[in-house]
């Protein structure tokens, strides 16, 4: 019995030591970042000049969401209502493959195809980000619809509604909050993405979106980049916090497990 207790203590000690290492690796840089951001703020850092970048980011976000949301929603609703199971599986596989395309490939493609015709302005960036998030959002929407209990749809049909009417008036209200969480995950992806945009832009201009501006400032070795980094990271963390479910469950990932790219 004593031997077992000893082993249990040893196990707990090893777990605690490794956890402390993990916490140090995660928390120490964040603490340093907060300290640097505070000192940059006291010196009157980049905050006044950040307005242009915030505007550019919001403009990109608005344009992309405006284009992507109806397409993804329509596609997901169609996938829920119309196709057979076999077709649906094929479409799911295709979406999965599209969502797995790395940011570097998309960015390079945009650099070769879009930049010569549209330049490296907002139009190219919007199309690139639409291509980047559309499969992700469609896949997530479709997953939300597929998790709805079939009884809901059956009940709607039994009451005499058509498939589309049942989907829109019975199923949709039941999943609205989950759809909003998918949209927020998409917003996180758009605001945080930098690799694809940098590849599209090549040489980074001033007054671009926040993530690209952070890269530019870090390359210039500017102290006030810490403030920008903290603002960007903090905003995305708060967005994630706002979408957490209130009920007593551990958080789950919104994105499909097969999608490993994140920026």
């Amino acid at each position, binding site marked *: 019995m004593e031997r077992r207790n000893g082993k249990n203590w040893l196990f707990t000690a090893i777990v605690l030591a490794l956890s402390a290492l993990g916490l140090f690796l995660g928390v120490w840089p964040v603490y340093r*970042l907060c300290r640097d951001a505070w000192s940059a703020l006291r010196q009157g850092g980049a905050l006044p000049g950040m307005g242009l970048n915030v505007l550019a980011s919001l403009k990109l976000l608005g344009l992309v969401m405006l284009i992507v949301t109806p397409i993804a929603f329509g596609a997901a609703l169609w996938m829920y209502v119309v196709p057979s199971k076999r077709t649906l599986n094929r479409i799911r596989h295709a979406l999965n493959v599209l969502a797995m395309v790395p940011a570097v490939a998309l960015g390079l493609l945009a650099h070769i195809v879009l930049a010569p015709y549209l330049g490296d302005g907002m139009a190219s960036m919007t199309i690139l980000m639409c291509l980047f998030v559309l499969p992700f959002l469609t896949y997530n929407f479709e997953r939300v619809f597929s998790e709805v209990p079939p009884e809901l749809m059956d009940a709607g049909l039994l009451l005499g509604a058509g498939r589309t009417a049942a989907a829109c008036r019975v199923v949709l209200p039941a999943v609205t909050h989950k759809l909003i969480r998918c949209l927020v995950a998409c917003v996180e992806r758009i605001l945080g993405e930098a690799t694809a945009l940098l590849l599209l832009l090549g040489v980074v201009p001033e007054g671009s979106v926040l993530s690209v501006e952070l890269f530019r400032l*870090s390359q210039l070795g500017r102290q006030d980049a810490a403030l920008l980094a903290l603002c960007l990271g903090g905003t995305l963390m708060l967005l994630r916090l706002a979408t957490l479910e209130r009920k007593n469950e551990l958080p789950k990932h919104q994105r499909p497990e097969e999608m490993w790219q994140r920026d």
Partner: protein
Amino acid sequence: MPVCIKGGCGKETMTRPAKNMKAAWAWFCALALVLSCLLLAACVFLISANAETLGMGGLRTDEVLSLLMQRMGLTILTAAAGVALALLPAMALGVGVSYLLPWPIRLRVSRLGFCIEAIPAVVLGYMTMRYIAPATSNPWLCLMLSLSMLALPRLFTEFCSMFGQDDGIRMASECLGGQTYQTVLHFSLPQHAREIGLIYLGAVARALCEGVAVIIALSAFEGYETLVTGAMRAVGVGMGATAPALGLAILQAVALLPPLSIVYITIYCMRER
């Protein structure tokens, strides 16, 4: 691989899908490797023939090939090692949170981890450049630490949700008089071995494609590039960028295909098994 399907042997029938999946994995990997290498060779040939238009950064074909091999090796090794470095602490954090903390604290810590995971790569890359690179003189070590820092929050949340499903196992083990270490080592870890493998491979795939964090972290050192950062530099990204060489960028993006396809095929086969 020949498999006996006659004789009605139950064990044979049960092990057949697993064996078939291993054979399928080997075949798919070989096919992906051959196809992607052929594609790479074709790209090298075509781009070399049009080097003046596309730009190869002034390098000859043999120099380009050796550069690609060197960067591919650096990319794969640092991704695998960086994620492996984060795996144990993340697993320990997951075990600690799931097995040692009471439920309300466990819930809050998991949620905190989930929120930290939302920090984008560009911010993490900046933190690496500012706080980790000055402490390490070796670019390999810096790159590995940067990738492990990137992987840690995601791995932590994955392990938290994985060990969070173990309440049944935990209760059964405790009813049988098992202690925490016995539950974890003899019940939980063996049951989740495949999931842990999947989580590791997923993180490796993500690390292989990581661009902005790595380019920021490596800006403290000269002459060290992965395939993605090499492609980024070739189109003019970053302070130390040379003249744009689109051909070189395309080749480096294509060279990412063999390791990435093998990782994805392995993930697919492990999931389907």
